[in-house]
């Protein structure tokens, strides 16, 4: 038996480095003699560049180069699509022609000897455009809707079922565009050595950044190296390799010097993705006792003209509840904007808001408690895929959450609960997200001093990957976590999938487990071949590892430690391991995480201020590797959900498509005073199917469900159903 590391509340192994400032983020990697680049962004929303007055700017102090489509190197832009790139369309080619596709598109890059000089020159660069009015309003009916591949799904006849249902809900929902707004800006430093390129660059997907930039510049993949040991928050914005990475590399190539490029906060609203604004319709049909007879979910997202970004907006509707007649439809409106991107809880967070708001509406119409309504529609299996769930604890989540939240004190009638003058509302909503798994690999090196080094090309944008992977390696090597050194953030390490989609723990964790098992096998082989070892010539099958020591089964001797084995030759044991989900298991089960989220709001009936007083979430996510980190993940997701429900909205000026509030004072996100008591609980759930670790992922589901729980609480408090997020004072003022 090993002393278990998995499940322990280990504090962050990188915590000290972060709070003492020794952790180095992308913009912290300065190189001697580097130049500074500043992007000049288009100030029109559509059209072309007609004139660039670069000559005078080139003569400004410190300026080394002004690079525009007129003098930029023509780049090969070989085909490349990573898992996170849109399947249809072609990425933006920067500085390759005079076309402006959206407001804020990079149209020039100014390179100078220091940042001040570069900023000043960039501001002085006069560019003339032939501009047209862009189409940026998704609700504009004249915009053509396109149907992406596999966008629609259906079972039974939902339209007939809804029309004939004794009780019906049919409503429209809207969610504003949001930007990720992590604390750390995007940053890339690019250094060429001949035809080899090193990028110190903020990335959630290093091996894809490596492959993408290799393709853009027509290089062999191995000629590009990407380094990113720390990420100061990302929420999905660093999944793709955006144009600024190409621009940094291009500027470095054209100047022959190392170039550092950091985006401004404003520029982070231009070309680094956003949660697309969505328009949705939900129609529900039900029997008077609350059994769903038909569900229709139609949704439209926004995308750019040059790529079709799709997300799983309607996916959860197909499996969340039991219903014989379900129809889902997904469309895209192509706008003159940049391409959206995955943002925490992508697709599900938006789709679930609509579905869970409608379920809440239905509960009032039926006079059935909202949780009871969900219980009456709890499916026994995934009715869309017609297969069993690998595990599903939604009802246990509702039970645990109800109890901790005190749902029983809720009086059903809207406007029936008060605290002094304030209107109090309690709301609940379901959360769900798929338990994904992608092929990954990892390396374990057992050193002569007894330490284990573990490496994978993964990222840690904040969930605590450094810590949780250390725990996984410690668990399977039988070592205390202090003897494990886990490293990530280099493209040269064994390949991992993108750090997003809540699959890092499942994918990289399983690969580390495999690498540990392989390292132990190699160490055992070495021991049995060693004439000086106590297990010399033993059959490997007769040996066992326990707490990092090798001995014959049933033998009471101390056995051999890794250090004992390795010290005899001095050569470290190095093993790689890979893992992926067994296709038969993947085919056989529907794999998702589930949760129940509860929110309490207090609304001032005079002036309409809405404050969240409490959020409780209960989740079934398989095994919890580290309860401290898991709780932290959940509270972070809940705060993101408060933002989605009550604050976040990127506002575009319809005249030129500019984001008007591209500023931290104007793009509202929760501050400490907006964050109430947040509680996260995990139901005991054993899922033997998802992966060898039994983990289902947590990062995304932590945001899903919070916004509808809050919106449902707002209705309970006021009797006003707000179907458009974010909910602001003006929406409840006259309620």
């Amino acid at each position, binding site marked *: 038996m090993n002393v278990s590391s998995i499940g322990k509340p280990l504090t962050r192994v990188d915590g000290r480095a972060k709070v003492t400032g020794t952790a180095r983020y992308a913009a912290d990697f300065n190189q001697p003699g580097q130049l500074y680049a500043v992007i000049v962004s288009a*100030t029109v929303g559509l059209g072309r560049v007609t004139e660039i007055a670069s000559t005078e700017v080139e003569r400004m102090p410190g300026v080394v180069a002004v690079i525009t489509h007129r003098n930029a190197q023509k780049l090969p832009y070989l085909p490349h699509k990573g898992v996170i790139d849109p399947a249809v369309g072609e990425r933006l080619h920067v500085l390759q022609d005079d076309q402006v596709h959206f407001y804020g598109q990079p149209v020039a890059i100014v390179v100078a000897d220091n940042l*001040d000089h570069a*900023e*000043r020159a960039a*501001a002085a660069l006069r560019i003339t455009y032939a501009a047209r009015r862009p189409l940026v309003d998704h609700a504009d009916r004249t915009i053509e809707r396109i149907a992406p591949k596999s966008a629609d799904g259906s079972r039974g006849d939902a339209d007939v079922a809804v029309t004939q249902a004794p009780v019906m809900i049919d409503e429209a929902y809207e969610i504003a565009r949001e930007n990720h707004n992590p604390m750390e800006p995007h940053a890339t430093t690019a250094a060429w050595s001949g035809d080899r390129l090193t990028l110190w660059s903020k990335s959630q997907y290093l091996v894809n950044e490596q492959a993408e930039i290799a393709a853009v510049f027509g290089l062999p993949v191995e000629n590009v190296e990407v380094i990113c040991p720390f990420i100061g928050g990302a929420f999905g914005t660093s999944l793709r390799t955006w144009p600024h990475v190409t621009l940094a590399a291009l500027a470095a190539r054209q100047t022959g010097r190392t170039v550092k490029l950091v985006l401004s906060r404003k520029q982070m609203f231009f070309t680094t993705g956003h949660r697309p604004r969505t328009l949705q319709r939900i129609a529900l049909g039900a029997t008077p006792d609350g059994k769903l007879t038909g569900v229709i979910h139609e949704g439209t997202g926004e995308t750019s003209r040059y790529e079709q970004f799709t997300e799983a907006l309607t996916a959860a509707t197909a499996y969340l509840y039991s219903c014989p007649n379900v129809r889902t439809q997904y469309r895209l409106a192509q706008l003159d904007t940049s391409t959206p991107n995955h943002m925490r809880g992508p697709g599900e967070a938006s789709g679930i808001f609509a579905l869970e708001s409608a379920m809440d509406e239905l509960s009032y119409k039926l006079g059935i408690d909202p949780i009871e309504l969900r219980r009456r529609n709890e499916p026994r299996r995934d009715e869309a895929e017609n297969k069993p769930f690998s595990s599903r604890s939604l009802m246990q989540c509702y039970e645990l959450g109800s109890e901790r939240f005190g749902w029983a004190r809720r009086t059903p009638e809207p406007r029936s609960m008060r605290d002094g*003058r304030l209107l109090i509302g309690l709301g609940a909503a379901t959360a769900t997200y798929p338990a994904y798994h992608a092929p990954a690999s990892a390396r374990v090196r057992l050193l002569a001093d007894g330490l284990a080094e573990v490496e994978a090309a993964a990222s840690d944008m904040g969930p605590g990957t450094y810590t949780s992977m250390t725990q996984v390696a410690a668990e399977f090597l039988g070592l205390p976590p202090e003897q494990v050194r886990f490293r990530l953030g280099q493209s040269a390490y064994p390949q991992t999938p993108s750090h997003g989609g809540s699959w890092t723990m499942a994918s990289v964790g399983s690969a580390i487990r495999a690498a540990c098992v392989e390292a132990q096998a190699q160490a055992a082989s070495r021991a049995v071949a060693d004439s000086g070892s106590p297990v010399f010539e033993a059959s490997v099958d007769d040996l066992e590892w326990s707490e990092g020591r090798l001995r014959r089964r049933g033998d009471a001797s101390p056995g051999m430690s890794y250090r004992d084995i390795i010290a005899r030759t001095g050569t470290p044991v190095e093993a790689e391991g890979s893992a992926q989900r067994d296709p038969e298991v993947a085919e056989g089960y529907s794999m998702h995480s589930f949760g129940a989220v509860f929110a309490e709001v207090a609304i*001032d009936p*005079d*002036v*309409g*201020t*809405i*404050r969240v007083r409490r959020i409780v979430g209960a989740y079934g996510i398989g095994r919890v590797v580290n309860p401290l980190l898991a709780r932290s993940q959940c509270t972070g997701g809940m705060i993101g959900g408060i933002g989605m429900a*009550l*604050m976040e909205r990127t*506002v575009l*000026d319809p*005249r030129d498509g*500019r984001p*008007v*509030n591209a*500023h931290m*004072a*104007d793009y*509202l996100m*929760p*501050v*400490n*005073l*907006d964050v109430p008591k947040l509680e996260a609980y995990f139901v005991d759930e054993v899922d033997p199917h998802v992966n060898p670790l039994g983990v289902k992922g947590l990062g995304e589901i932590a945001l899903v469900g919070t916004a509808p729980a809050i919106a449902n609480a707002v209705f309970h408090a006021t009797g006003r159903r707000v179907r458009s997020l*974010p909910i*602001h*004072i*003006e929406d409840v*003022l*006259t309620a």
Partner: protein
Amino acid sequence: MFPFTLEKPRSTEDAIAAAASGARFIAGGTTLIDLMREQVECPDRLIDINSLPFGGIRVEGEDLVIGALARMAEVAADPNVQRLQPLIAESLIEGASPQLRNMASMGGNLLQRVRCPYFRMLDAGCNKRTPGSGCAAIDGLNSGHAILGTSDHCVATHPSDVAVALVALDATMRVKGPQGERSFPVEELFRLPGDTPHLEHTLLPGELIVEIRVPGGPHSRRARYLKVRDRASYEFALVSAAAALSIEDGVIREVRLAVGGVGTRPWRLRDCEAALVGTRPERRAFEEAAQLARQGARPLRHNQFKVELLPRTVVRALALAGEVA
């Protein structure tokens, strides 16, 4: 940021002389540096006035005297301010963030620039930033903009919270300039935009605010500041209201009422005040008087809710001040 020189003056006279010849004063720098980073302001010469003797807070008779260089945080925490003019402390705490309040001076607070997003976008029309370039907000996104005191050239609100309290309390300010000293009501510091929105205040070239004087009275203790906004902190007001009441024998003897977030300058509500004097401090009276607050309101496309939110905020602030449920 563009290059500039930063000078420490040897005396107040030096500082004033420098400013009269085009230099800009800098105290906390929380507005100016921000705007310089965004290249909205590009002064080439800054005079650091922090060493000049205009800090501190003192009491003279019934008056509270606040040095122009006193920091927002310092004033908010001052026992005399809390005791004599709690409205000022409350309005300061509702403003900005702790970091900004630690740096920002009282004089600078009054002179802070507007938060209209187009003012900060060099590629958008803004008559305040670039006279004659038009106003992008009037036909653009304007949910945060003013409904009172606007013109066809500018619709930006004045962003200060404490200015609303000072205007309500009939505070005066003392300034020093090349021609000597003068004092005038804080309310007269702020200009309406008219057709010259780039002229925001009535200070003459080189004039420096040195102190703010707040007269005390029976209304001072029964005074509250209410700031309404979509997040609980670190956001400018959608609507705010400063209300101070003097009540004798169950009847309102005196009222001071000013609002923020709705006007192009801190907006005193004298008609509401007049309507309340002699009435009982009851919700119905507050509601009737508050209707007068929106006289002359000119809502824009996205800020019509302010016409409704304004009287509601006034009622609530009066209720808080009068301790009426």
